């Protein structure tokens, strides 16, 4: 422990600087004549406190500042001019005396300005010190100091060791040791409170694990003192992705498969996504909910890339299955990976009505037909039924044609399921319906007639 120096009487009284006057600046816009000595107060070891001072030339002539220095362990000057320095009449010279005790104890410093001396006193209470390992040894940290973790490349991490030590002769306790902010993670710190006997220490680590490229700041707090943690994440760009489809062209009512391959093997692992946007080309149609990826029934699927691989995976599969829906339009696929954004478009042209199935049901009064299909232009205007007997002879020279424009238009407006539909048609029969052999069903929309769908009624 450093013994406290006895103040000399002439120091306590202050020594005149001649026409130079020394002031202490306790705050903005304030100044007090310096009275010869000043007690900086209690400052924990490893921290510092500055005292702002001002020399003013009160005379009419310039004065040369020939000596400006401070002696004493823990004391230094900051922001001071080099000497010799000419102080013009009426001007000020501002500087700071810094008290930065290296350990707990009492300290004194002597400030000399030309031939005048001023006493500074300071104390450091017993407190835990915080150090960081640097080049094989531990370096004491001051409060607010920045600890640089350096660069961590693509998915890797950097690691630094820290030490909390009790340099005093008494038992000291750290109530909190907290790492916060940024991708910094405490590793191996004992549970708080941490009680340390004299000269005892604990060592722990902090990982810097950046998830993406960027500059990251975090904070280590040991009780009331904080230290800034600084790291940089470096992610070299992914190789450019490309979208691949299992077909050259698509139509409505299909399922397709998409894969994503990179221009080369990726240098590291990461994630991205493929999204779908649908633009109907049909007037009045706003969307088709069936245009989606089947993996998760949504318009986007996450993908992952492994280091060393060039093929992206969708939930472990090399392809993602999607539906083209039942509405004419454009499907825009967008793959996003790192900074890459790549698009591909699938065009679904308007087509005649597609009949998926026709089922029949004989009822006491006749026959019912249930027709499932889709009209991707949502413009069905007519449906024709041509019945044949069991010998294949048409029952009428012409099919039964029914105008369906209005009911279909209302159905598509009120049911947002794209162009798919189920139509129930009922045909009363007068006579022996068992003679009914088959029926051809054909729709017409703005694109033209559909393919005939024949169903046997036996």
């Amino acid at each position: 422990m450093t013994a406290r120096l006895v103040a000399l009487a002439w120091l306590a009284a202050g020594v005149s600087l001649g026409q130079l006057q020394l002031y202490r600046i306790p705050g903005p816009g304030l100044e007090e004549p310096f009275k010869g000595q000043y007690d900086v107060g209690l400052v924990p070891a490893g921290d510092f406190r500055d005292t702002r001072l001002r020399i003013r030339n009160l005379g009419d002539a310039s004065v040369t500042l020939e000596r400006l220095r401070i002696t004493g362990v823990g004391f230094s000057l900051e922001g001071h001019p080099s000497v010799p320095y000419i102080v013009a009449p009426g001007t000020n010279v501002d500087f700071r005396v810094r008290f930065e005790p290296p350990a707990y104890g009492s300290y004194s410093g002597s400030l000399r300005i030309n031939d005048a001396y001023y006493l500074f006193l300071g104390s450091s209470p017993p407190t835990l010190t915080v150090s960081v390992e640097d080049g094989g040894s531990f370096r004491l940290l001051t409060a607010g100091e920045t600890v640089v973790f350096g660069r961590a490349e693509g998915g890797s991490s950097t690691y630094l060791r820290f030490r909390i030590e009790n340099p005093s002769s008494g038992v000291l306790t750290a109530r909190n040791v907290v790492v916060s902010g940024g991708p910094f993670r405490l590793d191996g710190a004992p549970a708080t409170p941490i009680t340390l006997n004299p000269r005892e220490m604990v060592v722990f680590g902090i990982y810097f694990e950046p998830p993406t490229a960027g500059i990251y700041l975090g904070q280590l707090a040991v009780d009331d003192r904080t230290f800034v943690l600084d790291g940089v994440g470096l992610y070299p760009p992914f190789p450019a992705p490309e979208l691949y489809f299992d077909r050259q062209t698509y139509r409505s009512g299909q399922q397709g498969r998409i894969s994503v391959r990179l221009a080369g093997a990726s240098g590291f692992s990461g994630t991205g996504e493929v999204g779908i946007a649908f633009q109907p080309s049909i007037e009045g149609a706003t969307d088709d909910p069936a245009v989606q990826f089947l993996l998760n029934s949504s318009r986007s699927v996450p993908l992952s890339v492994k280091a060393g691989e060039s093929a992206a995976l969708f939930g472990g599969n090399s392809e993602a299955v999607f539906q083209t829906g039942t509405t004419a339009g454009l499907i825009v696929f967008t793959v996003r990976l790192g900074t890459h954004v790549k698009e591909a478009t699938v065009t679904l042209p308007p087509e005649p009505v597609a009949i998926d199935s026709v089922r029949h049901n004989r009822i006491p009064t006749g026959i019912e037909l249930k027709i499932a299909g889709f009209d991707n232009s949502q413009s069905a205007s007519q449906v024709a039924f041509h019945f044949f007997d069991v010998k294949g002879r048409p029952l009428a020279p012409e099919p039964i044609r029914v105008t369906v424009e209005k009911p279909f238009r209302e159905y598509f407006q009120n049911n947002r399921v794209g162009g798919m539909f189920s139509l129930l048609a009922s045909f009363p029969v007068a006579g022996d319906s068992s003679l009914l052999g088959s029926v051809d069903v054909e729709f017409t929309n703005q694109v033209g007639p559909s393919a005939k769908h024949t169903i046997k009624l036996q």
Partner: protein
Amino acid sequence: MTFRLLVLSALSSLVLCGQPALGPPAVGFVRDPSGAVRPVLGVRANFLLGLPVVERALSAAFSGRAGLVKTEAEILVLDEAGQVIETGPAPPGTAEFAFDQNGRPSSMFFSVTGELFARAGLAWRRVPSEAGPGGENVVAVGPQERGSVSMLVRGGDELWLRRLSVRTGAVLHSRLLPGILEPALLLPRETVVYAAEGGLAIRRAGGEETFVDLPFQADRLELMGDSRVHFVAEGGARDLLIHLGDDGPSWHELPGVVP
């Protein structure tokens, strides 16, 4: 002989025989990984999953005309639209279901208690317990046909088709089904649908078999609609619709549900 065919003007009306003339096409119902029973709308390779009609189902089957669902404590009978029309108490655990050729509920088997029930009108009649498989695993149950109920029963490494009298529970007929793997479904006329190596197989009573190449191995098979099977693979991550059409089976992927 001539006859006349008349066309109703009902095509221009919104209601026909109590049903809308035009509507979204219904494919069936599936049970998702959370146990929610959802309607499937769609045609061909274009499907949409609807909102759940039943939650926390342990077992489910649909014929296109009706549905049977087992929750922890109840048996539910649903109509074609997925509306619950009948409920009844049930023991815990899963159940196996079967429908007749017209898609009406026909029989059910409770896995934990080993009880077999046959539909009689609108009621369920328990088939006498001495008909039980005697500690063997019941893999699937078939519909009632000619006063009897068929069951697929595993005994050791072998799978047997057993036919029991609905009235007495006596075993009327039993035959070994070589090569049948689980999971499996028993359809009318002793048609077995089962998960084969590399796909799905449909074996008819006469032994004729049709194979569907699939890229997945089935974890579960459930009837989801008229001639449609819900094929669940990869622990629920892949759902397929297998259509047992008259022209031959076909399949498409179904939208998945992220829990």
